[in-house]
């Protein structure tokens, strides 16, 4: 790979891809050269929007492009394993949206594929890049609040008056366990909270949880309310 510019191929051009592409388009040494989505019209329109040279309905065709250095996989979770393994097999670097897969066997297959590939595998979780959280981590590291003894993370599920607007149709798969892997709140969104807890206070040793089910305004089942507590491995630290 010429180290002057990273050529990116995006697999999955749904709503969240807008934020990923925006980041690449702002980087002076990154270029989106192709996009793949099994909805051909979507791939074509994204290619036009992002200035891509090529678009594909089948990501395998995109992986044949030698000029692609890295791929960003932004598809439903049940597709991550296969797409990641094939991308690494094609020698590409991979950024795959969290959560990386649905089962232990799938994680291990992906990690093994990385070990055999010239490419690296990054699992992308965005909260740890959120500037206020980055600042909070810096303050912890600097000892501004001393040695932390606990972390408390509260997430509210409900109408999003101020946040990023996502069409309901693009969220539906997240409530299907077969595609999302086990619950919109604890497994999908909860991944952010657990990643931040580990990022801030270190590895987690033990977990206790009460998880109930309820329906959202669309009648879709979600694993909330949920009350989850944990003990970190070091420093008598706890979280919830």
């Amino acid at each position, binding site marked *: 790979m010429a*180290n002057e510019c*990273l050529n*990116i191929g995006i697999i999955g051009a749904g709503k969240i891809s807008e*934020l*990923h592409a*925006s*980041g*690449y388009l*702002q*980087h002076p*040494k*990154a270029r989106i050269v192709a996009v793949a989505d099994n909805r051909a019209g979507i791939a074509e329109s994204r290619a036009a929007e992002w200035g891509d040279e090529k678009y594909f309905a089948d990501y395998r065709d995109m992986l044949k492009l030698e000029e692609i250095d*890295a791929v*960003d996989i932004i598809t439903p979770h049940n597709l991550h394993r296969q797409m990641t393994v094939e991308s690494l097999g094609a020698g590409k670097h991979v*950024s795959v949206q*969290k*959560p*990386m897969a649905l089962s*232990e066997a799938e*994680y*291990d297959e*992906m*990690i093994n594929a990385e070990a055999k590939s010239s490419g*690296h*595998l*990054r*699992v992308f*979780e*965005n909260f*740890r890049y*959120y*500037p*206020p*959280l980055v*600042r*909070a981590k810096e*303050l912890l590291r600097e000892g501004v*609040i*001393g040695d932390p003894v606990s972390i408390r993370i509260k997430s*509210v599920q409900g109408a*999003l008056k101020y*946040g*990023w607007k996502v069409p309901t149709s693009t969220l539906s798969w997240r409530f299907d366990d077969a595609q999302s892997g086990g*619950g919109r709140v604890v497994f999908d969104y*909860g*991944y952010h909270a*657990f*990643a931040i*807890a*580990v990022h801030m206070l270190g*590895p*987690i040793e*033990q*977990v*206790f*949880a*009460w998880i109930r089910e309820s329906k959202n305004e669309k009648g879709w089942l979600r694993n909330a309310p*949920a009350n*989850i507590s*944990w003990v970190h491995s070091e420093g008598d630290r706890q979280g919830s």
Partner: protein
Amino acid sequence: MNRCTGKALETSPLVIYADGKRTEVGLDEIEWDWGASFRNGMFDFVDLMLAGSHAPLSSVEGKYVLQVARAAQISSEMNSPVTVAGIDQAQ
């Protein structure tokens, strides 16, 4: 931390309580748009790949975080504490 994906309070994104003092990191002092986390994450990926380095939250750490989520699910089903290190064997 008072906001991320959305916001619940009309207050500073980050408030520090230390040594008996409350210090706000205000809206004009720090970028607080949730979308910035994506831009920063893409920048990090590009920079690290160009440098030939591994990215934070690499695959092994990604698996570990998922095991924490699995531990929560299993704990709720069993109504008992679950040790994260035992998740591999439990599957």
